[in-house]
Protein backbone atom coordinates (compact mmCIF):
# COMPACT_ATOMS: atom_id res chain seq x y z
CA UNK A 1 0.00 0.00 0.00
CA UNK A 2 1.22 3.54 -0.78
CA UNK A 3 0.57 6.51 1.48
CA UNK A 4 2.00 10.01 0.84
CA UNK A 5 4.56 8.41 -1.43
CA UNK A 6 5.76 5.99 1.24
CA UNK A 7 5.47 2.23 0.88
CA UNK A 8 3.59 0.80 3.82
CA UNK A 9 4.05 -2.89 4.57
CA UNK A 10 0.72 -4.78 4.38
CA UNK A 11 1.21 -6.06 7.94
CA UNK A 12 1.42 -2.46 9.15
CA UNK A 13 -1.80 -1.37 7.54
CA UNK A 14 -3.52 -4.56 8.76
CA UNK A 15 -2.37 -3.93 12.31
CA UNK A 16 -3.53 -0.33 12.16
CA UNK A 17 -6.87 -1.40 10.75
CA UNK A 18 -7.22 -3.61 13.81
CA UNK A 19 -6.33 -0.75 16.17
CA UNK A 20 -8.86 1.57 14.57
CA UNK A 21 -11.55 -1.13 14.85
CA UNK A 22 -10.76 -1.58 18.55
CA UNK A 23 -10.86 2.19 19.10
CA UNK A 24 -14.19 2.49 17.30
CA UNK A 25 -15.57 -0.29 19.49
CA UNK A 26 -14.21 1.39 22.63
CA UNK A 27 -15.78 4.69 21.58
CA UNK A 28 -19.17 2.99 21.16
CA UNK A 29 -18.88 1.27 24.54
CA UNK A 30 -17.91 4.58 26.18
CA UNK A 31 -20.92 6.26 24.57
CA UNK A 32 -23.24 3.44 25.69
CA UNK A 33 -21.93 3.63 29.26
CA UNK A 34 -22.47 7.39 29.29
CA UNK A 35 -26.08 6.92 28.25
CA UNK A 36 -26.92 3.85 30.35
CA UNK A 37 -25.12 4.48 33.66
CA UNK A 38 -26.82 7.19 35.67
CA UNK A 39 -25.23 6.65 39.09
CA UNK A 40 -23.42 9.79 40.26
CA UNK A 41 -20.58 7.73 41.76
CA UNK A 42 -19.66 6.13 38.42
CA UNK A 43 -19.82 9.38 36.46
CA UNK A 44 -16.24 10.50 37.10
CA UNK A 45 -14.83 7.14 36.05
CA UNK A 46 -16.90 7.09 32.86
CA UNK A 47 -16.06 10.69 31.95
CA UNK A 48 -12.39 9.90 32.49
CA UNK A 49 -12.76 6.73 30.41
CA UNK A 50 -14.24 8.74 27.54
CA UNK A 51 -11.52 11.37 27.82
CA UNK A 52 -8.96 8.58 27.66
CA UNK A 53 -10.57 7.08 24.56
CA UNK A 54 -10.68 10.45 22.82
CA UNK A 55 -6.98 10.93 23.57
CA UNK A 56 -6.23 7.45 22.23
CA UNK A 57 -7.57 8.50 18.82
CA UNK A 58 -5.11 11.38 18.74
CA UNK A 59 -2.20 9.27 20.01
CA UNK A 60 -2.87 6.54 17.43
CA UNK A 61 -3.16 8.97 14.53
CA UNK A 62 0.09 10.74 15.48
CA UNK A 63 1.87 7.42 15.94
CA UNK A 64 0.53 6.12 12.61
CA UNK A 65 1.70 9.23 10.79
CA UNK A 66 5.22 8.97 12.19
CA UNK A 67 5.39 5.28 11.32
CA UNK A 68 4.40 6.06 7.73
CA UNK A 69 7.18 8.64 7.49
CA UNK A 70 9.54 5.91 8.70
CA UNK A 71 12.59 5.90 10.92
CA UNK A 72 13.02 9.67 10.93
CA UNK A 73 9.39 10.15 11.93
CA UNK A 74 9.73 7.75 14.84
CA UNK A 75 13.00 9.33 15.97
CA UNK A 76 11.48 12.81 15.96
CA UNK A 77 8.39 11.55 17.81
CA UNK A 78 10.32 9.70 20.49
CA UNK A 79 12.89 12.48 20.77
CA UNK A 80 10.07 14.90 21.52
CA UNK A 81 8.49 12.46 23.96
CA UNK A 82 11.83 12.06 25.75
CA UNK A 83 12.30 15.80 26.01
CA UNK A 84 8.81 16.40 27.41
CA UNK A 85 9.08 13.37 29.71
CA UNK A 86 12.38 14.62 31.10
CA UNK A 87 10.79 18.02 31.66
CA UNK A 88 7.96 16.42 33.63
CA UNK A 89 10.40 14.33 35.64
CA UNK A 90 12.79 17.17 36.47
CA UNK A 91 9.90 19.45 37.39
CA UNK A 92 8.80 16.85 39.90
CA UNK A 93 12.11 16.04 41.59
CA UNK A 94 13.73 18.70 43.69
CA UNK A 95 16.81 20.23 42.06
CA UNK A 96 19.00 22.99 43.35
CA UNK A 97 20.12 26.23 41.82
CA UNK A 98 23.58 24.77 41.16
CA UNK A 99 22.09 22.04 38.95
CA UNK A 100 21.26 24.54 36.23
CA UNK A 101 24.22 23.77 33.97
CA UNK A 102 23.97 20.02 34.51
CA UNK A 103 20.32 20.19 33.50
CA UNK A 104 21.15 22.28 30.47
CA UNK A 105 23.54 19.54 29.28
CA UNK A 106 20.99 16.83 29.95
CA UNK A 107 18.18 18.58 28.06
CA UNK A 108 19.95 20.25 25.17
CA UNK A 109 23.05 18.14 24.56
CA UNK A 110 22.58 14.53 25.64
CA UNK A 111 18.89 14.16 24.74
CA UNK A 112 19.31 15.32 21.12
CA UNK A 113 22.67 13.51 20.88
CA UNK A 114 21.09 10.16 21.77
CA UNK A 115 18.53 10.48 18.98
CA UNK A 116 21.06 11.87 16.54
CA UNK A 117 23.29 8.83 17.09
CA UNK A 118 20.29 6.59 16.49
CA UNK A 119 19.61 8.37 13.21
CA UNK A 120 23.17 7.52 12.15
CA UNK A 121 22.42 3.90 12.93
CA UNK A 122 25.48 3.70 15.17
CA UNK A 123 25.14 0.85 17.65
CA UNK A 124 27.28 2.80 20.11
CA UNK A 125 24.14 4.62 21.17
CA UNK A 126 23.89 2.06 23.97
CA UNK A 127 26.89 3.47 25.86
CA UNK A 128 26.65 7.23 25.41
CA UNK A 129 24.30 7.94 28.31
CA UNK A 130 25.32 5.19 30.76
CA UNK A 131 29.07 5.84 30.32
CA UNK A 132 29.79 9.31 28.95
CA UNK A 133 26.83 11.31 30.20
CA UNK A 134 27.07 9.47 33.52
CA UNK A 135 30.66 10.60 34.15
CA UNK A 136 30.51 13.96 32.41
CA UNK A 137 27.48 15.21 34.30
CA UNK A 138 29.15 14.36 37.61
CA UNK A 139 32.09 16.55 36.62
CA UNK A 140 29.80 19.42 35.59
CA UNK A 141 28.02 19.15 38.92
CA UNK A 142 31.25 19.14 40.88
CA UNK A 143 32.42 22.24 38.99
CA UNK A 144 29.21 24.01 39.97
CA UNK A 145 30.60 23.85 43.49
CA UNK A 146 27.51 22.97 45.51
CA UNK A 147 28.18 19.83 47.55
CA UNK A 148 24.91 19.68 49.44
CA UNK A 149 23.20 16.29 48.76
CA UNK A 150 25.64 15.84 45.88
CA UNK A 151 25.12 12.14 45.34
CA UNK A 152 21.37 12.42 45.65
CA UNK A 153 21.15 15.26 43.12
CA UNK A 154 23.46 13.45 40.70
CA UNK A 155 21.35 10.31 40.97
CA UNK A 156 18.15 12.21 40.28
CA UNK A 157 19.44 13.78 37.08
CA UNK A 158 21.16 10.61 35.84
CA UNK A 159 18.05 8.61 36.56
CA UNK A 160 16.02 11.13 34.61
CA UNK A 161 18.26 10.74 31.57
CA UNK A 162 18.19 6.95 31.90
CA UNK A 163 14.43 6.49 32.05
CA UNK A 164 13.19 9.41 29.99
CA UNK A 165 15.80 9.35 27.24
CA UNK A 166 17.96 6.22 27.23
CA UNK A 167 15.31 3.58 27.89
CA UNK A 168 12.68 5.21 25.69
CA UNK A 169 15.11 5.62 22.79
CA UNK A 170 15.28 1.83 22.51
CA UNK A 171 11.79 1.90 20.96
CA UNK A 172 12.76 3.70 17.73
CA UNK A 173 16.13 1.88 17.87
CA UNK A 174 14.25 -1.23 16.75
CA UNK A 175 14.59 0.09 13.19
CA UNK A 176 18.32 -0.64 13.40
CA UNK A 177 17.97 -4.37 13.91
CA UNK A 178 19.04 -6.29 10.85
CA UNK A 179 16.94 -9.46 10.86
CA UNK A 180 17.37 -11.80 7.84
CA UNK A 181 14.18 -12.07 5.82
CA UNK A 182 12.46 -9.40 7.86
CA UNK A 183 12.64 -5.88 6.49
CA UNK A 184 14.00 -3.09 8.65
CA UNK A 185 10.72 -1.27 9.15
CA UNK A 186 8.19 -0.16 11.69
CA UNK A 187 6.55 -3.53 12.32
CA UNK A 188 8.59 -4.48 15.40
CA UNK A 189 8.09 -1.05 16.94
CA UNK A 190 4.36 -1.23 16.32
CA UNK A 191 4.23 -4.74 17.79
CA UNK A 192 6.05 -3.62 20.94
CA UNK A 193 3.82 -0.58 21.38
CA UNK A 194 0.61 -2.53 20.78
CA UNK A 195 1.43 -5.31 23.27
CA UNK A 196 2.82 -2.88 25.84
CA UNK A 197 -0.05 -0.39 25.69
CA UNK A 198 -2.68 -3.14 25.41
CA UNK A 199 -1.31 -4.65 28.59
CA UNK A 200 -1.58 -1.25 30.31
CA UNK A 201 -5.12 -0.65 29.13
CA UNK A 202 -6.29 -4.21 29.84
CA UNK A 203 -4.83 -4.12 33.35
CA UNK A 204 -6.87 -0.97 33.88
CA UNK A 205 -10.02 -2.54 32.40
CA UNK A 206 -9.74 -5.83 34.33
CA UNK A 207 -8.88 -3.92 37.46
CA UNK A 208 -11.97 -1.71 37.11
CA UNK A 209 -14.18 -4.73 36.40
CA UNK A 210 -12.91 -7.26 38.94
CA UNK A 211 -10.20 -5.58 41.01
CA UNK A 212 -10.34 -6.48 44.72
CA UNK A 213 -6.90 -7.41 46.04
CA UNK A 214 -4.26 -4.71 45.88
CA UNK A 215 -0.73 -5.71 44.85
CA UNK A 216 1.17 -2.79 46.35
CA UNK A 217 -1.32 -0.50 48.06
CA UNK A 218 1.33 1.96 49.20
CA UNK A 219 2.72 2.41 45.67
CA UNK A 220 -0.32 2.35 43.43
CA UNK A 221 -3.87 2.00 44.77
CA UNK A 222 -5.15 1.10 41.29
CA UNK A 223 -2.99 -2.00 40.76
CA UNK A 224 -4.80 -5.19 41.77
CA UNK A 225 -4.03 -8.88 41.35
CA UNK A 226 -7.18 -9.31 39.24
CA UNK A 227 -6.12 -6.45 36.94
CA UNK A 228 -2.56 -7.75 36.78
CA UNK A 229 -3.42 -11.35 35.88
CA UNK A 230 -6.26 -10.43 33.53
CA UNK A 231 -4.22 -7.71 31.81
CA UNK A 232 -1.02 -9.71 31.42
CA UNK A 233 -2.83 -12.78 30.09
CA UNK A 234 -5.00 -10.87 27.62
CA UNK A 235 -2.03 -8.82 26.39
CA UNK A 236 -0.09 -12.06 25.90
CA UNK A 237 -3.03 -13.42 23.92
CA UNK A 238 -3.02 -10.32 21.70
CA UNK A 239 0.76 -10.55 21.24
CA UNK A 240 0.49 -14.21 20.30
CA UNK A 241 -2.24 -13.44 17.78
CA UNK A 242 0.03 -10.83 16.19
CA UNK A 243 2.91 -13.24 15.48
CA UNK A 244 2.44 -12.68 11.72
CA UNK A 245 3.87 -9.17 11.98
CA UNK A 246 7.04 -10.37 13.75
CA UNK A 247 9.97 -12.64 12.92
CA UNK A 248 8.76 -14.95 15.76
CA UNK A 249 6.82 -18.20 15.75
CA UNK A 250 3.47 -18.03 17.59
CA UNK A 251 4.98 -19.75 20.63
CA UNK A 252 7.95 -17.35 20.80
CA UNK A 253 5.59 -14.46 20.25
CA UNK A 254 3.60 -15.61 23.27
CA UNK A 255 6.73 -15.76 25.43
CA UNK A 256 7.95 -12.36 24.24
CA UNK A 257 4.63 -10.62 24.71
CA UNK A 258 4.41 -12.10 28.21
CA UNK A 259 7.85 -10.61 28.85
CA UNK A 260 6.77 -7.21 27.47
CA UNK A 261 3.64 -7.21 29.62
CA UNK A 262 5.51 -8.16 32.81
CA UNK A 263 8.18 -5.51 32.22
CA UNK A 264 5.49 -2.96 31.47
CA UNK A 265 3.88 -3.74 34.79
CA UNK A 266 7.21 -3.27 36.56
CA UNK A 267 7.75 0.07 34.78
CA UNK A 268 4.34 1.32 35.89
CA UNK A 269 5.03 0.29 39.44
CA UNK A 270 8.47 1.94 39.61
CA UNK A 271 7.32 5.21 38.06
CA UNK A 272 4.39 5.21 40.49
CA UNK A 273 6.79 4.83 43.39
CA UNK A 274 8.62 7.98 42.27
CA UNK A 275 5.33 9.87 42.08
CA UNK A 276 4.22 8.72 45.54
CA UNK A 277 7.56 9.75 46.98
CA UNK A 278 6.96 13.25 45.57
CA UNK A 279 3.33 13.23 46.70
CA UNK A 280 1.59 13.61 43.33
CA UNK A 281 -0.94 11.49 41.45
CA UNK A 282 0.11 12.26 37.89
CA UNK A 283 3.29 13.49 36.22
CA UNK A 284 1.43 16.21 34.37
CA UNK A 285 -1.70 17.12 32.45
CA UNK A 286 -0.43 17.14 28.88
CA UNK A 287 -2.17 13.89 27.83
CA UNK A 288 -5.86 14.62 28.50
CA UNK A 289 -7.42 11.97 30.74
CA UNK A 290 -4.17 10.06 31.19
CA UNK A 291 -2.08 12.54 33.15
CA UNK A 292 1.44 13.30 31.97
CA UNK A 293 3.60 11.77 29.27
CA UNK A 294 5.39 9.63 31.83
CA UNK A 295 2.05 8.23 33.01
CA UNK A 296 1.52 6.86 29.51
CA UNK A 297 5.13 5.87 28.79
CA UNK A 298 5.99 4.26 32.14
CA UNK A 299 5.51 0.70 30.89
CA UNK A 300 7.38 1.26 27.62
CA UNK A 301 10.39 2.58 29.55
CA UNK A 302 11.00 -0.86 31.01
CA UNK A 303 9.77 -2.95 28.09
CA UNK A 304 11.63 -1.26 25.20
CA UNK A 305 15.29 -1.89 26.16
CA UNK A 306 14.77 -5.52 27.16
CA UNK A 307 12.68 -6.26 24.08
CA UNK A 308 15.40 -4.69 21.89
CA UNK A 309 18.19 -6.76 23.44
CA UNK A 310 16.25 -10.02 23.43
CA UNK A 311 15.38 -9.63 19.76
CA UNK A 312 18.92 -8.56 18.89
CA UNK A 313 20.44 -11.51 20.75
CA UNK A 314 18.25 -14.18 19.21
CA UNK A 315 17.32 -12.80 15.79
CA UNK A 316 19.52 -9.97 14.52
CA UNK A 317 22.74 -10.28 12.53
CA UNK A 318 24.85 -7.87 14.54
Amino acid at each position, binding site marked *: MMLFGHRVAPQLSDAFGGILAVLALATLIGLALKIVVRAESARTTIDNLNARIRTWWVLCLVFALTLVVGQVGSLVLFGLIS*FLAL*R*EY*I*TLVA*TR*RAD*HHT*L*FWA*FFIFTPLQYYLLSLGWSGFVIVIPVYAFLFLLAVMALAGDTQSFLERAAKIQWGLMICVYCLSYAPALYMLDIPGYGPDAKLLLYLVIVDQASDVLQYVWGKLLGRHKIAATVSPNKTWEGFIGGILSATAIGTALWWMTPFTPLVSAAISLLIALLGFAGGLVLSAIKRDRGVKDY*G*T*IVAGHGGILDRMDSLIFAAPVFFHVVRFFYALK
Partner: protein
Amino acid sequence: MNLAPLAGVVAGGARLISGVQVSWRDGRPLWPQSVFFANHTSHLDFVVLWSSLPKRIRAKTRPVAAQDYWDRGLRRALAVDVFKAILVPRGHGEKSETNARDTIDRIVAEMGERYSLIIFPEGTRGTGEAVAPFKSGLYYLCLRKPGVALVPAYIENLNRILPKGEFLPVPFISRITFGPASRIEPSESKQHFLARMRDALCALQPR
Protein backbone atom coordinates in the same frame (compact mmCIF):
# COMPACT_ATOMS: atom_id res chain seq x y z
CA MET B 1 7.47 52.02 17.31
CA ASN B 2 4.35 49.93 17.82
CA LEU B 3 5.34 46.29 18.16
CA ALA B 4 2.32 45.30 20.23
CA PRO B 5 1.12 42.66 17.74
CA LEU B 6 4.36 40.79 18.50
CA ALA B 7 3.23 40.33 22.09
CA GLY B 8 1.05 37.34 21.16
CA VAL B 9 4.00 35.64 19.47
CA VAL B 10 6.37 36.29 22.37
CA ALA B 11 3.71 35.09 24.80
CA GLY B 12 3.21 31.90 22.78
CA GLY B 13 6.95 31.23 22.86
CA ALA B 14 7.08 31.90 26.59
CA ARG B 15 4.22 29.49 27.17
CA LEU B 16 5.99 26.84 25.12
CA ILE B 17 9.27 27.14 27.04
CA SER B 18 7.60 27.39 30.42
CA GLY B 19 4.86 24.81 29.78
CA VAL B 20 2.87 26.96 32.13
CA GLN B 21 -0.18 25.48 33.80
CA VAL B 22 -2.65 28.14 34.83
CA SER B 23 -5.26 27.73 37.52
CA TRP B 24 -7.81 30.16 38.90
CA ARG B 25 -8.74 29.55 42.51
CA ASP B 26 -11.78 31.72 42.23
CA GLY B 27 -13.09 31.04 38.76
CA ARG B 28 -12.20 33.06 35.69
CA PRO B 29 -11.87 36.81 36.14
CA LEU B 30 -14.44 39.35 35.00
CA TRP B 31 -13.22 42.37 36.93
CA PRO B 32 -13.10 45.62 35.03
CA GLN B 33 -9.81 47.02 36.24
CA SER B 34 -7.35 44.94 38.22
CA VAL B 35 -3.88 44.87 39.64
CA PHE B 36 -2.32 41.42 39.31
CA PHE B 37 0.45 41.17 41.87
CA ALA B 38 2.90 38.29 41.90
CA ASN B 39 6.05 36.97 43.51
CA HIS B 40 9.10 37.83 41.46
CA THR B 41 11.74 35.18 40.74
CA SER B 42 12.74 35.48 37.11
CA HIS B 43 12.90 37.84 34.14
CA LEU B 44 10.34 35.58 32.50
CA ASP B 45 7.74 36.43 35.13
CA PHE B 46 5.84 39.24 33.50
CA VAL B 47 5.84 37.71 30.03
CA VAL B 48 4.54 34.37 31.27
CA LEU B 49 2.06 35.95 33.66
CA TRP B 50 0.78 38.20 30.89
CA SER B 51 0.48 35.25 28.49
CA SER B 52 -1.51 33.22 31.00
CA LEU B 53 -4.26 35.83 31.25
CA PRO B 54 -7.41 35.38 29.15
CA LYS B 55 -7.00 37.16 25.79
CA ARG B 56 -9.62 39.82 26.52
CA ILE B 57 -7.96 40.86 29.74
CA ARG B 58 -4.45 40.52 28.32
CA ALA B 59 -5.09 43.23 25.74
CA LYS B 60 -5.82 45.67 28.54
CA THR B 61 -3.07 44.64 30.94
CA ARG B 62 0.32 46.35 31.23
CA PRO B 63 3.27 45.33 33.36
CA VAL B 64 5.03 47.75 35.65
CA ALA B 65 8.79 47.17 35.33
CA ALA B 66 12.00 48.55 36.76
CA GLN B 67 13.46 51.36 34.69
CA ASP B 68 17.08 50.60 35.64
CA TYR B 69 16.87 47.14 34.09
CA TRP B 70 14.37 47.43 31.23
CA ASP B 71 15.19 50.86 29.82
CA ARG B 72 18.02 49.67 27.55
CA GLY B 73 18.17 48.55 23.90
CA LEU B 74 16.50 45.24 23.19
CA ARG B 75 15.05 44.98 26.67
CA ARG B 76 13.33 48.28 26.19
CA ALA B 77 11.96 47.17 22.82
CA LEU B 78 10.53 44.06 24.46
CA ALA B 79 9.13 45.75 27.55
CA VAL B 80 7.92 49.06 26.22
CA ASP B 81 7.22 48.55 22.52
CA VAL B 82 5.87 45.03 22.69
CA PHE B 83 4.25 44.81 26.11
CA LYS B 84 3.48 48.50 26.73
CA ALA B 85 5.23 48.26 30.07
CA ILE B 86 5.18 51.24 32.40
CA LEU B 87 8.77 51.80 33.47
CA VAL B 88 9.31 53.16 36.96
CA PRO B 89 12.45 54.01 38.92
CA ARG B 90 13.24 51.61 41.74
CA GLY B 91 13.92 53.04 45.16
CA HIS B 92 17.45 52.16 46.19
CA GLY B 93 17.58 53.05 49.85
CA GLU B 94 15.59 56.10 50.96
CA LYS B 95 13.79 57.85 48.18
CA SER B 96 12.28 61.26 48.48
CA GLU B 97 8.53 61.54 49.03
CA THR B 98 7.98 63.63 45.92
CA ASN B 99 9.74 61.11 43.68
CA ALA B 100 7.53 58.31 44.94
CA ARG B 101 4.41 60.43 44.49
CA ASP B 102 5.45 61.32 40.93
CA THR B 103 5.80 57.65 40.13
CA ILE B 104 2.36 56.79 41.49
CA ASP B 105 0.88 59.76 39.62
CA ARG B 106 2.36 58.50 36.40
CA ILE B 107 1.11 54.94 36.91
CA VAL B 108 -2.39 56.19 37.72
CA ALA B 109 -2.35 58.40 34.62
CA GLU B 110 -1.18 55.53 32.40
CA MET B 111 -3.87 53.24 33.83
CA GLY B 112 -6.68 55.65 33.21
CA GLU B 113 -10.01 53.90 33.42
CA ARG B 114 -8.91 51.25 30.95
CA TYR B 115 -5.73 49.38 31.84
CA SER B 116 -5.02 46.70 34.40
CA LEU B 117 -1.52 46.23 35.80
CA ILE B 118 0.94 43.48 36.55
CA ILE B 119 3.21 44.39 39.44
CA PHE B 120 5.80 42.66 41.55
CA PRO B 121 5.51 44.31 44.95
CA GLU B 122 8.62 42.63 46.36
CA GLY B 123 10.50 45.13 44.22
CA THR B 124 13.23 42.73 43.14
CA ARG B 125 13.69 39.11 42.18
CA GLY B 126 13.86 36.63 45.03
CA THR B 127 15.21 33.09 45.23
CA GLY B 128 11.82 31.54 44.57
CA GLU B 129 11.45 30.10 48.05
CA ALA B 130 10.30 32.90 50.33
CA VAL B 131 8.17 35.92 49.46
CA ALA B 132 9.90 39.12 50.60
CA PRO B 133 8.00 41.93 52.41
CA PHE B 134 6.07 44.16 49.98
CA LYS B 135 7.18 47.65 49.06
CA SER B 136 4.61 50.31 49.84
CA GLY B 137 3.91 51.34 46.21
CA LEU B 138 0.95 48.97 46.03
CA TYR B 139 -0.63 50.74 49.00
CA TYR B 140 -0.21 54.24 47.63
CA LEU B 141 -1.55 53.10 44.27
CA CYS B 142 -4.66 51.69 45.95
CA LEU B 143 -5.22 54.89 47.88
CA ARG B 144 -5.47 56.65 44.54
CA LYS B 145 -7.54 53.92 42.88
CA PRO B 146 -9.47 52.19 45.67
CA GLY B 147 -11.85 50.52 43.21
CA VAL B 148 -9.35 48.22 41.48
CA ALA B 149 -9.55 44.48 42.09
CA LEU B 150 -6.36 43.13 43.65
CA VAL B 151 -5.59 39.67 42.31
CA PRO B 152 -2.68 37.66 43.76
CA ALA B 153 -0.81 35.39 41.32
CA TYR B 154 1.69 32.88 42.68
CA ILE B 155 4.39 31.86 40.23
CA GLU B 156 6.18 28.53 40.64
CA ASN B 157 9.26 27.20 38.87
CA LEU B 158 10.02 30.12 36.54
CA ASN B 159 13.07 30.74 38.69
CA ARG B 160 14.18 27.19 37.90
CA ILE B 161 13.81 27.85 34.16
CA LEU B 162 15.88 31.02 34.21
CA PRO B 163 17.40 31.73 37.63
CA LYS B 164 18.96 35.03 38.53
CA GLY B 165 22.32 35.35 36.78
CA GLU B 166 21.75 32.74 34.03
CA PHE B 167 21.01 33.39 30.38
CA LEU B 168 20.38 29.85 29.11
CA PRO B 169 16.97 28.53 30.06
CA VAL B 170 16.28 24.97 31.18
CA PRO B 171 12.79 23.60 30.57
CA PHE B 172 10.58 23.04 33.57
CA ILE B 173 6.82 22.97 33.80
CA SER B 174 5.83 26.11 35.62
CA ARG B 175 2.60 26.96 37.33
CA ILE B 176 0.68 30.16 37.94
CA THR B 177 -2.13 30.18 40.47
CA PHE B 178 -4.48 33.16 40.57
CA GLY B 179 -6.22 33.75 43.87
CA PRO B 180 -9.51 35.43 44.73
CA ALA B 181 -9.73 39.20 44.15
CA SER B 182 -10.02 41.66 47.00
CA ARG B 183 -9.98 45.43 47.47
CA ILE B 184 -8.38 47.88 49.81
CA GLU B 185 -10.65 48.52 52.82
CA PRO B 186 -11.63 52.04 53.84
CA SER B 187 -9.11 53.45 56.32
CA GLU B 188 -6.99 50.31 56.24
CA SER B 189 -3.49 51.00 57.57
CA LYS B 190 -0.52 50.65 55.26
CA GLN B 191 1.05 47.94 57.36
CA HIS B 192 -2.17 45.95 57.64
CA PHE B 193 -2.91 46.24 53.95
CA LEU B 194 0.55 45.17 52.78
CA ALA B 195 0.59 42.23 55.19
CA ARG B 196 -2.88 41.16 54.08
CA MET B 197 -1.87 41.25 50.41
CA ARG B 198 1.30 39.31 51.10
CA ASP B 199 -0.67 36.69 53.04
CA ALA B 200 -3.13 36.39 50.15
CA LEU B 201 -0.19 35.67 47.83
CA CYS B 202 1.50 33.23 50.20
CA ALA B 203 -1.79 31.36 50.65
CA LEU B 204 -1.40 30.23 47.04
CA GLN B 205 1.93 28.50 47.69
CA PRO B 206 1.83 24.73 47.26
CA ARG B 207 1.59 22.58 50.44
